[in-house]
């Protein structure tokens, strides 16, 4: 029931994740952060089996940071997304596969292009203008199909996200305790304050 949403706009990527951390019938926390900063211009949002998710995200985070330190430059969003995909694809045929779905938001500082990758636990990767995992996809993709324009700005993206948020709040059967919203652009990763 976790929500993970991403919208790519002309100058950046908007990522939204639900703040509720649930386990069975209980909400354990209403300030959960389902994202990890992998590097200055790469952000990963994730859902899936609890335990696997954070373990996997921080494993990826550590390896990306190690690469940055060793090589002295930042890995491109394209490379990061393939590293994540490859890790999941290898894990799929292991004794205990990671059950983690992820969205990767990035900004390529060389090409000056934003990037959004949809990756599931099988290692399926798709580069998309907007993406969602889980039930949220069923509620929001039709809205995004209708309103998305590829020349949108971050402000337009946030307005579109508000529309999605409204739909989720009316249609989702349980309270997901609002969204945490982040933007990735040329200046890096920033949290967007406000009522979500």
């Amino acid at each position, binding site marked *: 029931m976790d929500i993970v949403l991403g919208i790519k706009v002309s100058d950046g990527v908007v990522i939204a994740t639900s703040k509720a951390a649930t386990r069975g019938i209980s909400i354990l926390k209403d300030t959960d952060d389902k994202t990890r900063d992998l590097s200055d211009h790469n952000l990963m949002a994730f859902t899936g089996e609890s335990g696997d998710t954070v373990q996997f995200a921080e494993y990826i985070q550590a390896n990306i940071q190690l690469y940055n330190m060793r090589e002295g430059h930042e890995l491109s969003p394209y490379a990061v997304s393939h590293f994540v995909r490859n890790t999941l694809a290898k894990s799929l045929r292991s004794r205990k596969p990671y059950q983690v779905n992820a969205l990767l938001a990035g900004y390529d500082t060389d090409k000056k292009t934003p990037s959004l990758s949809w990756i599931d636990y099988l*290692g399926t990767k*798709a*580069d998309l203008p907007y993406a969602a995992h889980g039930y949220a996809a069923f509620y929001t993709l039709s809205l995004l199909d209708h309103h998305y324009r590829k020349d949108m700005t971050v402000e337009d993206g946030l307005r579109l996200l508000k529309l999605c948020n409204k739909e989720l709040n009316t249609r989702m059967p349980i309270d997901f305790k609002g969204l945490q919203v982040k933007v990735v652009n040329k200046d890096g990763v920033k949290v967007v304050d406000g009522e979500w």
Partner: protein
Amino acid sequence: MSNPASINGGSAVAMVGKDCVAIACDLRLGNQSLGVANNFEKVFQFGHVFLGLTGLATDVITLNETFRFKTNLYKMREERDIEPETFANLVSTSLYEKRFGPYFVGPIVAGINSKTNQPFICSFDSIGCIDYSKDFAVVGTASDQLYGMCEGLYEPNLSPDDLFETISQALLNANDRDALSGWGAAVYIITKDKISKRYLKSRQD
């Protein structure tokens, strides 16, 4: 739908014409009933050889990368591009290596041999058994529909333009009767000295 080869959906088809071959695929990537992407191409180029890969999308990506790696190494050792017949054997042995834990894919190979100028197509099962064909080869979730279309529309020795029309109609109409295929299509027409790639406008449901 616990069959791994039909989680993501997708289809591909190849045909032989007069001194030309064609290979085409749909563009859908889905998660069961949900359409996720409409830009997921399933035909890949290695020199002058083309590989259509349908089935479990993660394996489609993995195998594309594996074959890119293997054909690059081949080119360095042989100082020439791989030929279609050789590539078909490479696909076969690579898949059979995973005989007891297979990649869930349906591959097809199409190309023209650069020495003999002979058109070549073939398809495989998920563990690498080669099915050579003189006319057409089909794979994917719309394979039944594609067999029906190809048997009905195909004739030998078509010109490149006629082959394009035939393979396009075969793919389009087959995809429209399969819920897991469609969302656009890409068609390659290959002759000895020209490769053309065209995207088709198709139903979006």
